[in-house]
C-alpha cells in the first residue's frame, strides 16, 4: 500500500481495533529499514480477519508480530504497510494439567506460559532466545530452536493443533487438543517455520511435559574440536539419554555473562535429568568418557539445568544456584546481538558426522575475511551456529549499522558458508544479519526442487500476497 493517509482512513473504517500511527509505535516494528505506516492490535480472530480483508482489498502488506523479537529474520519485506501485533491476543484458553495439554492464544509470552506450567510441575520444551520477550506465535513462525530439542524435539513435535487466519481472511482450524490425532492433513506442520507467510496463527494447542525430579549439568572442556565431538559421539551412541548436548567455543563462552564455563577452546555442555541415582550414573559415566577423550576439565553443576526453575527467594543467598548457565546459553544469540548489533549468524543443519568439518571450514572462512567468529552447536542434533562479529578493533564494533566494507565481507563469508553447508550434506541459512548484509546474500540460501510446490501453497493460502510478502524462502 501506498501509505497514503486516505488509505489509513479506510483501515480505520474497516476495523474495530485501534490503529496506531505514531512514530514510536511504528518504529518498534521497523525491519530492514522498512517502517509500517500503522500498527493494529486485534483482540480476537474476528478483528484480525477484518484487517486481513482490508489488506486484501487494498493490496497492502501485513507484518504479523507477537513480540517483534524475531522480526529481523528473513528477507527485507517487499511490503510492510501495517504491522499486526498479537499482543492483545494473549490469553490462556484452556489448561488440563491432568492430560498434559493446554491451549493459548498466539500472542501470549512464552515466559508466561512457562510460569503457568511450572506451577503445575510441567513445562514446554521451547526454551528459545529472547525468552523474556518472545511470543508463542513468533517462536512458531521462525521455528525457534531450543537446547532441549535433543531430548524433546522441536515445535513440530509438541504442537497438537492450531487456528490461523489465511491470507484470504478465513479462520482455519487444524489438529485437535489430544496427544494423538490423524484426522485430515496436518496443517500445523505447514504453519510452523513458515514465517507467517501462509497464515497468522491465532491459537495453539500444545502438549506439556512433566518436570523431571532432579537435574544436573556437566561442563567438559576440550583443547580440540575433534576431541569434543568424539565425546559427543560416544554419548549419542551410548545408552545415556541426556536432555541437552551443546557445544560452544571459547569465543562463544566469552559472549556469555558467566564465569562457570571453562576457558577451554571447546566446551561440551551436557544436561541430564531423572532421579538422583540416575544423575550419579551420569556423573560417573560422563567423567569416564571425558577422561577417555582427553578432556581438559570436567565439572558437574548439581543445580544447573535448563529446566531448573528460578531460585526460590527463600533460599536466595544460601549458596543455592539458579539456572544461570542455561539461561545464558539460551540467550546466546540475544547476547551476541546486544554486544555486536551487526553480528551475522549462520545456522547450518548437518548430519552429525559433518558438524566438525563444517565448523572447521567456517572458522577458516571467517579468518580469511578477517572477521572474529564464535561457534555454538546443538551438537546432538547436528545444528551449528557461526557468529560473524565485526572486527573488534574497528571503530564501528558496537554500531547498529554495519560499515560498507565489513558488510561486504560478512556477506561473502556467509555466502561461502551456504556453499559449505551444501557440500557437507546440510543447509545453511542466515537468520540474523544487518540489513546491509542482506543486500549481498540471500538469507535462506538457494531454493530446491520442491520450491514450486511451496509457491503453489502460498498462492492457495495467500493469493494476494498480503502476509509478510517477500520475506521467506525464495521470496515467498
Amino acid at each position, binding site marked *: 500500500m501506498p501509505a497514503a493517509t486516505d488509505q489509513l482512513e479506510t483501515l480505520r473504517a474497516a476495523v474495530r481495533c485501534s490503529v496506531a500511527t505514531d512514530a514510536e509505535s511504528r518504529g518498534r516494528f521497523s525491519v530492514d529499514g522498512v517502517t509500517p505506516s500503522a500498527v493494529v492490535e486485534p483482540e480476537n480472530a474476528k478483528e484480525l480477519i477484518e484487517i486481513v480483508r482490508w489488506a486484501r482489498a487494498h493490496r497492502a502488506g501485513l507484518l504479523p508480530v507477537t513480540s517483534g523479537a524475531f522480526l529481523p529474520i528473513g528477507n527485507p519485506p517487499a511490503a510492510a504497510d501495517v504491522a499486526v501485533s498479537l499482543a492483545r491476543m494473549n490469553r490462556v484458553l484452556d489448561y488440563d494439567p*491432568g*492430560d*498434559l495439554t493446554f491451549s493459548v492464544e498466539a500472542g501470549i509470552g512464552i515466559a508466561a506460559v512457562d510460569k503457568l506450567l511450572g506451577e503445575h510441575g*510441567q513445562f514446554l520444551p521451547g526454551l528459545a532466545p529472547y525468552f523474556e520477550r518472545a511470543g508463542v506465535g513468533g517462536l512458531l513462525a521462525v*521455528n525457534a*530452536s531450543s537446547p532441549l530439542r535433543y531430548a524433546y*524435539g*522441536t515445535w*513440530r*513435535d509438541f504442537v497438537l493443533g492450531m487456528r490461523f487466519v*489465511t491470507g484470504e481472511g*478465513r*479462520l*482455519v*482450524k*487444524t489438529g*485437535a*487438543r*489430544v*496427544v*494423538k*490425532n*490423524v*484426522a*485430515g*492433513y*496436518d*496443517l500445523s506442520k*505447514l504453519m*510452523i*517455520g*513458515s514465517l507467517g507467510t*501462509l497464515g497468522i496463527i491465532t491459537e495453539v494447542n500444545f502438549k506439556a511435559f512433566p518436570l523431571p525430579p532432579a537435574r544436573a549439568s556437566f561442563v567438559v572442556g576440550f583443547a580440540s574440536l575433534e576431541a569434543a565431538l568424539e565425546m559427543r559421539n560416544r554419548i*549419542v*551412541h551410548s*545408552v*545415556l*539419554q541426556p536432555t541437552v548436548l551443546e557445544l560452544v567455543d571459547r569465543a562463544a563462552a566469552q559472549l556469555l555473562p558467566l564465569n562457570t564455563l571453562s576457558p577451554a577452546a571447546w566446551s561440551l555442555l551436557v544436561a541430564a535429568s*531423572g*532421579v538422583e*541415582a*540416575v544423575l550419579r*550414573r551420569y556423573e560417573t559415566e560422563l567423567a569416564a568418557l571425558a577422561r577417555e577423550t582427553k578432556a581438559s576439565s570436567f565439572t558437574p553443576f548439581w543445580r544447573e539445568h535448563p529446566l531448573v526453575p528460578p531460585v526460590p527467594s527463600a533460599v536466595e543467598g544460601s549458596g543455592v544456584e539458579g539456572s544461570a548457565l542455561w539461561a545464558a546459553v539460551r540467550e546466546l544469540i540475544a547476547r551476541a546481538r546486544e554486544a555486536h548489533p551487526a553480528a551475522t549468524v549462520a545456522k547450518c*543443519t548437518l*548430519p*552429525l*558426522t559433518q558438524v566438525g568439518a563444517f565448523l572447521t571450514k567456517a572458522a577458516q572462512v571467517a579468518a580469511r575475511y578477517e572477521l572474529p567468529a564464535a561457534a555454538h552447536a546443538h551438537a546432538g542434533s*547436528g*545444528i551449528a551456529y557461526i557468529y560473524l562479529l565485526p572486527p573488534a578493533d574497528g571503530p564501528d564494533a558496537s554500531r547498529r549499522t554495519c560499515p560498507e566494507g565489513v558488510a561486504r565481507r560478512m556477506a561473502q563469508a556467509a555466502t561461502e558458508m551456504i556453499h559449505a553447508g551444501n557440500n557437507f550434506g546440510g*543447509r545453511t*541459512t542466515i537468520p540474523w544479519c544487518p540489513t546491509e548484509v542482506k543486500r549481498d546474500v540471500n538469507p*535462506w*540460501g538457494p531454493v530446491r*526442487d*520442491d520450491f514450486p*510446490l*511451496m509457491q*503453489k501453497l502460498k498462492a492457495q*493460502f495467500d493469493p494476494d500476497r498480503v502476509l509478510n510478502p517477500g520475506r521467506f*524462502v525464495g521470496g515467498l
Partner: protein
Amino acid sequence: MNKRLIKDLQKALGQEGVLWRPEELLLYEYDASVERALPDAVVFPRTTQDVVRLVRLANQYEVPIVGRGAGTGLSGGALAPQGGLLVVFSRMKRILEIDLANLRAGVEPGVVNLDLTRAVEDRGYYFAPDPSSQKACTLGGNVAENAGGPHTLAYGVTTNHVLGLELVLPTGELVEVGGKTFDTPGYDLTGLLVGSEGTLAIVTKIIVRLCRLPEAVKTLLGIFETVDDATETVADLTARGITPAACEMLDQFCLGAVEAATHAGFPLDAAAVLLIEVEGLREAVEVQADQVEEVCRAHRAREVRRARSEVEREKLWAGRKNAFGAMGRLAPNYYVQDGVIPRTKLPQTLRAVIEIGARHGFQVGNIFHAGDGNLHPMILFDARDREQFARVVAASNEMMKFCVQMGGSITGEHGVGMEKQEMMPLLFSDDDLDAMARVKQVFNPTGRLNPAKMFPLSKSCGELRVRPLPQRAGA
C-alpha cells in the same frame, strides 16, 4: 479394463509386474478395514522410475491410481473405490542406506516396519514407531497413515521420526522434500505429507531417524477388578507425570481371546489389565517401575506382576500385538474403532463406549493405547446379517461423536480413508476442510491419486453414507 493400458503396463513392468484377471484381483479388494473395492489392475513397481511410468500411464489413460503397502490399513486407504491401478510396493522393499553414525536410514516404501528394526537392533538401534501390525505393515503405509504404536507414547509417532521423502507427484514429477538433517528451510512438506493418507503423492523413498535401544526395560502387568480402576490408573499416571514407554489396556472380553490364542499368562477373571513398560537407564527403570506399581495399587490393582524374563515379556507383547487376530475366535467379524480423548476423560469415555455398544446390542472389546487416550473399541458382529452391520455403524458413529464431545478426535492413527469421511464435519468446519482441499489442489489437482478418500463425499454434515456389506472384516 482397457486392453491397451494392460499392454502398456506390461511393457513398462514386465508380465509378472501386472495382475489384471478378475480372479487375481480379488485379494486386493480388501484391506484390514470393513471396506471393499476392486481395482482394475494391480501393478508391482521395482524402482522409482517404474512408479513414474505408472503415474504417467494413469494420466495418459485417465484412470485412478492408488498406492498400497501391506494392506493392513484399517480405514480403506489402500482400496481403489473408483477402480484404476493399485500400485503395490512389495517389490520396493530395499533398505537403501543404514547410516548409524548419523542415526538415519533410507528405505523404499515397501520395507516392512519390523524389518528395519531387525536390520539394526543387533548393533543397538531401532526404529521407534511400532504399530501392533509391525510384522506386516510397510513404512510407506506408516508414513501415509502417520502410524502410531504402543511405544509411541514416549517416543512419538511416525511423523516425529521421518525427515525426508522422495515423492512422485500425480503429474509424474519426481521431488525430494526434507532430507537427512533437521530444520530444512522452507515449508515443512515432509510434515505435511506424513499422514496425508496417500492422497498427495506417491512416496518412493523415506529417510527416517533411528534411535538407540534403551539399556533396560521392565514390563508390568497391572490386574484390576473393575475397568474404572484401570482407566483411573492411566489418568493418574499421566497426571503425576509418570511417562511409561508404553501403557496399553486390555479388558476382560479381549483377555479371554488373547489368552486362548497366546497362553501368555493373562488373567481370565480380571475386568481389565494394563500392560505397562518402562525403559531407560537401569536406575531410572527401577524407580519408575515402583512408581507405576504404586499408582496401580492406589487404584486397587489386585496384583501387579513384573515380567521376570525376556521370554515372559515377549509373550505378553505377542498377546497384545496379535490381539486383533485373536478376536476372530469370538465372532465372525469385528469392527475396530479409533477414537482419541484427553486422558482425563478416559474413565467416562470408556463407560460410554461400553454403554453405547450394549444399547445397540453388542458386546464391545477394548484393547488400546491407553496412555495416549487412543481408544480402539472392537465391536463383534456377524457380517452375514445386514441389519447387524447397520447397527455396528450406528454404534461406532455414536462412539466417535462422544469422543469429539470430550474434546477429542475421530482417529488417532488409523486414518480417515473411506471409513470416516462423513465424520470429518464433526471436527472441521467448511473453511477447515476448504484449507485441506487447497493443499490437495496443489499436489493432486485432478484427484486421480487415491480418489474419494478423506474428504466428505456427501454435503450433508455428519450423515453416514450407506456402505457395502463387508465380506470379511478385520485381518
